[in-house]
């Protein structure tokens, strides 16, 4: 089974120094795995360290401790990173939250989509870079008319599609999406999530999907991890997590989802969650197959 694991994050810790004396622990002993062809969702409130984790995985931050093993390479080790640089840069791709700032305003769409190919001087499979860009655009649902437009002429959803096309043009094995739908309207969000699902089925890449919209995560992901203050408090297959959450934080989080049925919605009770430090100590323990919960040893949450 070990070969199956594409990305293995082990005891990752990252600290942001605010000043000489104060430091914020953005990630605290975070561990999870992503298998090949799996969609892993990472949820949590804002400031819980989801984006930091994504950036560590993309080598944008150097973590303070812990290691990240990607395809057998420890990418936190500078020497190993250098030897495998090309492989890492071509097989991992990142999608940002805000498409308006992740696309260069002064480049045309076709240049943006073909940019990674140009950087790595890859000969496009479909003749010219432009043809390649057109193909990738069609894949994400935009036609050739968009090739010569500038990002400022597109809508938010169209821009996000362009960003996805750019990431996919390298045919990545791991796609990291850092809240890709948070800045979009609800209807567009559904379109994009559908698109992700479809693309993942077509390409079969592994996908780290970061969001705070629980409904979308439930719909899209195979497995879900819940983060709180830089720690992973619970990780389980999506169905199981949403049907039987164990950790009190997860329970509180799930109880906050509105139910699209007025009668049930009226009866819904939002569980209060107290920041009891007791809840955030201990180790991840397997309570049922594939279901891990952060707890002290020998203890069970009601």
């Amino acid at each position, binding site marked *: 089974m070990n070969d199956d694991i594409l990305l293995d994050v082990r005891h990752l810790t990252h600290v942001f120094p605010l000043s000489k004396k104060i430091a914020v622990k953005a990630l605290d002993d975070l561990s999870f795995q992503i298998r090949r062809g799996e969609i892993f969702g990472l949820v949590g409130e804002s400031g819980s360290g989801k984006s930091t984790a994504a950036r560590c995985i*993309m*080598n*944008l931050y150097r973590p303070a401790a812990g290691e990240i093993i990607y395809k057998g390479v420890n990418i936190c080790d500078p020497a190993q990173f250098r030897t495998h*640089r*090309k492989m890492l*840069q*071509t097989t*991992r*791709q*990142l999608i*940002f939250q*805000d498409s308006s*700032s*992740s*696309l*260069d*305003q*002064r*480049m045309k769409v076709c240049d943006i989509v073909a*940019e*990674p190919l140009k*950087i*790595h001087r890859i000969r496009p499979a479909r003749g010219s870079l432009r043809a390649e860009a057109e193909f990738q655009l*069609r*894949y994400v*649902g*935009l*036609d050739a*008319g*968009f090739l010569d*437009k500038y990002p*400022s002429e597109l809508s938010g*959803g*169209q821009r996000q599609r362009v960003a996805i096309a*750019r990431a996919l043009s*390298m045919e990545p094995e791991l796609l990291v999406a850092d809240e890709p739908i948070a800045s979009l309207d609800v*209807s*567009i969000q559904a*379109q994009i999530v*559908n*698109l992700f699902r*479809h693309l993942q089925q*077509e390409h079969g890449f592994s996908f780290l999907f970061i969001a705070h919209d629980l409904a979308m995560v439930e719909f899209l992901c195979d497995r879900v991890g819940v983060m709180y203050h830089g720690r992973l408090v619970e990780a389980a297959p999506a169905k199981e997590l949403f049907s039987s959450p164990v950790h009190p934080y997860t329970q509180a989080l799930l109880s906050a989802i509105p139910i699209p049925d007025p009668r049930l919605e009226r009866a819904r009770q939002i569980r209060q969650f107290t920041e009891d430090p007791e809840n955030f100590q201990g180790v991840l323990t397997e309570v049922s197959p594939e279901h891990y919960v952060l707890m002290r040893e020998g203890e069970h949450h009601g």
Partner: protein
Amino acid sequence: MSSQFEIVGIRPADAKPPVRRQKWYRGKPLFAAALLGLIVAGCLGCGYIMTKDPSYMNLSNCNVAPDREFLFGTDTMGRDIFSMIWYGGRISLFIGAAATVVSTFLAIVFGALSGTAPEWLDTLLMRLTDILLSVPNLLVTVLLQAILGEANVLSLSLVIGVTSWTSIAKVVRTEVRQIRGSEYVIAAKCMGGGFFYILRKHLTPNFISSIMFMVVMNVRSAIVAESTLSFMGIGLPLEVISWGSMLSLSEKALMTNSWWMILIPGAFIVATLLCITSIGNYIRKKANNTQSNL
């Protein structure tokens, strides 16, 4: 592509609405461009215009006021000013352009370096530029000239370029600081773009509009610097004809009241600078417009 999959809510790109035709020359500094073109063309093609050999010292015709034969008169060494203007203009304009190239290149590299460097290095570099700025330019020029030996066209352009890059570098640095945190630069970094790739593809296009005006103005100040230095006797020597070195004879001209030796080269300098300024102003207005529209 799978057929069941349907894309919702995407409309094809609209055809561009017809743009109302405007007079193309509206608001453009046509007169300035034409005059500048005329001066540049005259200087480049000086061989066809010149009536005399500009460096020939005709000692029997010193200090001749403008007349039929010597259109702009002759200087104290008997050289024909009309020919010297076009011949020397080549060198003045060349120094203006070359010094600007040098200073812009330095400014972009230094500014981008300082902008992408960690905080402490950035502070150090900027302090250094401040200190460099506080040494009088005149002094730096004299020193550099002394190190490089006898002044010639290339060394003078180099010296002027080296002493005039700081203000552009500061603008570049601020712009780079703003741009480098943006996500498209991070994305390019993730995709494996190196420092120079990002500088070329992302940073430069984004700050070019804000420094364009300053670059054009740098051509202007380089021409001024050349003429000032040559006038003071620390730039080009008398034998190398340029607008500035022509003016270095002006002290003698003042004694003999030969106004043409001072007014004519100066008028050419001022006209060139005015043209460059109005073109620069046009560029600045255009750059500001596009920025506010984005």
